[in-house]
């Protein structure tokens, strides 16, 4: 009897589950709301300012689409809204925190930031947050034994004696190119919080050789993104004007062979024209002779 009762209870539970789970799924579908993705990052820039970027997207049919014109609320260390920014055509909302702005710190000495999308008729709410410590990244460019060397060091700010080197943290060195960044060095800071990379000797720069060198701590759990950059004429000057022969198809003066060929052709043809015109003049002169 006991067994049969267990069987009955089990079978009823199965029936209930079979009935209600699809019903719940249908109910969920019937709301018609999708879950957007909100990415939230912080980049500490060269001038000490911090750029907070919230990116709101939706993933449909294996393609990510930006959500344009949605309001993103920014919370900076408090429960109150610090700013509300509307997403641009790329689905991004930017908030720039100028140098000197003091933000509340938590017990670990980190600044807690949060971005929240409140949702709408078709999208559910989304939020994303991070907590980062402040870090300083500095760069110096030196010629060491005729080798162009990029030196960077990073530390947590404090009093002079209290500054803590970011030992062991990864760092990347880039050079800005036309469409993207070219990585020229990667590694970790040493115990002194220093890292050096050799700058390539043959990297093309602008007309005067200027290149923009960028050092970055990227997607660091503790420090977020920290960047420092400097423009310096270490590149090979690029000559985008005509090179090589000054007599070419693309220069102002035509190639010599072309000038010679054209001259011969035109002289030959026009020479014959002149010859024939002279013959016509002689024909006319002959008629005048006859009249005389």
């Amino acid at each position, binding site marked *: 009897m006991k067994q049969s009762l267990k069987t009955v209870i089990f079978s009823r539970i199965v029936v209930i589950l079979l009935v209600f789970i699809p019903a719940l799924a249908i109910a969920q579908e019937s709301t018609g709301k999708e879950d957007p993705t909100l990415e939230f990052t912080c980049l500490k820039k060269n001038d000490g300012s911090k750029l907070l970027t919230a990116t709101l997207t939706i993933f449909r049919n294996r393609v990510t689409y930006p959500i344009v014109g949605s309001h993103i609320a920014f919370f900076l260390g408090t429960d109150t809204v610090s700013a509300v920014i509307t997403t641009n055509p790329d689905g991004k909302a930017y908030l720039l925190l100028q140098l000197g702005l003091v933000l509340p710190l938590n017990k670990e000495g980190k600044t807690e930031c949060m971005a929240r999308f409140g949702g709408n008729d078709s999208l559910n709410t989304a939020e994303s947050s991070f907590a980062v410590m402040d870090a300083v990244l500095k760069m110096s460019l030196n010629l060491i034994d005729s080798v162009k060397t990029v030196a960077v060091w990073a530390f947590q700010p404090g009093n002079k004696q209290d500054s803590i080197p970011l030992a062991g943290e990864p760092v990347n060195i880039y050079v800005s190119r036309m469409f993207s960044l070219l990585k020229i060095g990667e590694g970790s800071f040493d115990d002194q919080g220093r890292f050096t990379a050799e700058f390539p000797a043959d990297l093309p720069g602008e007309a005067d050789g200027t290149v923009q060198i960028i050092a970055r701590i990227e997607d660091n759990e503790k420090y977020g993104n920290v960047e420092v950059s400097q423009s310096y004429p270490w590149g090979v000057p690029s000559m985008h004007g005509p090179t090589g022969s000054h007599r070419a198809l693309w220069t102002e003066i035509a190639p010599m062979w072309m000038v010679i060929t054209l001259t011969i052709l035109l002289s030959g043809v026009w020479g014959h024209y002149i010859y024939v015109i002279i*013959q016509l003049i002689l024909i*006319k002169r*002959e*008629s005048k002779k006859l009249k005389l």
Partner: protein
Amino acid sequence: MSSYTTEGLLTEFAPQLARPSKNWITWFVFFLLLFVFGMYGLYTQLTKGHIVTGMRDNVVWGIYIVNFIFFMGVSYAGALLSGVLHLFKTSWRKPIIRMTELITMVSLIIGPVFILFCIGRFERLPYLIIFPRIQSPIVWDVIAISTDLVGCFIFIYLSFLEDMAHLRDNAEALNLSPWRRKLYKYLAIGYTATPIQKKLLYFSRNVMAAMIIAIAIIVYSVLAWIFGVTLQPGWHSTIFGPYFVIAAVYSGTGVLLVLMWVFRRIYHLENYIKKQHFVNVGVLLFIIGAFYGYFTFSDYLTKWYGSARMDKLLIDKLFRNYYWLFIFSNYVGVLLPMIIIAFRRLRTINNISFGALITILALWVNRYLIVVPTLETPYLPIQDTRLDWVRYSGTWVEWSLTFAGIAVFCLLFMIISKLVPIIAVSEMVESDEYVVEDDVESLLS
């Protein structure tokens, strides 16, 4: 020695030179109306800009360029044919050589005008001369066409000279109007066929006939190189120079046959332009048509077999969007005239002329298929552009100017046929051989 006499021929052709008939006036008015319609189209284009044409950023060349290539081709064909017929002293050339010369001159006047219709910024036109870059194929073309224009006029003037002198000398008998007498006297520059004058003229004509053949080949090759030296699919081909020359001669021979049919019918020249002339020129058309077919096949075969991405796209487009035009241009336009001429039963004057007409239309379409589909197949993908900007189709303005060009071609032929006999009298009368006489030698020395 010829059985024809100057006086006899001039008397026979006198009605042609006399007052225009009613038929002549009707056709003249018809072509004049077409021309006026074209001028209205031009006025619309000048006042509203190129937006009234089908040309846009992608397809920057359309029917105007097609007409330019077509008329220039006809002109070079006329020059080549008249030069070759003259130099080789082909006996049957005599009744038709003037037509070939006139084809050269009239087409050469009309062709370059179509280039002007393409230009949006007329004020920049003098820059071609002020700041010429001889590396540019466009500058080659300007130099070539102007050189050719001068050469053709000299050549045609030389071939007209003797007839002008005949008309001047027989003005009384032909009862010509005073202004005509003055015109013929002025143009005849005192030519009286003295031994020295004959010799000077004979050598001048030979020199110019040889020159005109070379110039025609070079100039039309230059026109082909405007396309060939670019990297555009369908254009970048080493074969384009000779291909254009052959295509030009093919279309020009077709125009010659049609004109022979027209003038034979209008001026009753059955005694001069006989079936044998049609057959002879028809055989020429057959041979040139075979070459044209061979060149076309060779060009498309190598592109198709190579399957370079853009060439493949272009050929797919030709067989998809332009299927019937392609078939007409490259199959019907080649095979039909050849079949007509190959079979004796089909080889009648009307059939040969019909085949020639098909040739002309096919060659016009051929130029259209060279210009437009290539421009509709650019290397960079066309994005966010309206379909009517990507695909080209001629507007009424372009068609009105096209028909105006054809009308001017007919009008000029009608006018010239009233000024000089459409059959060269001097050619018919003169012997082909020039005999240097001792006294001439002494006179020249």
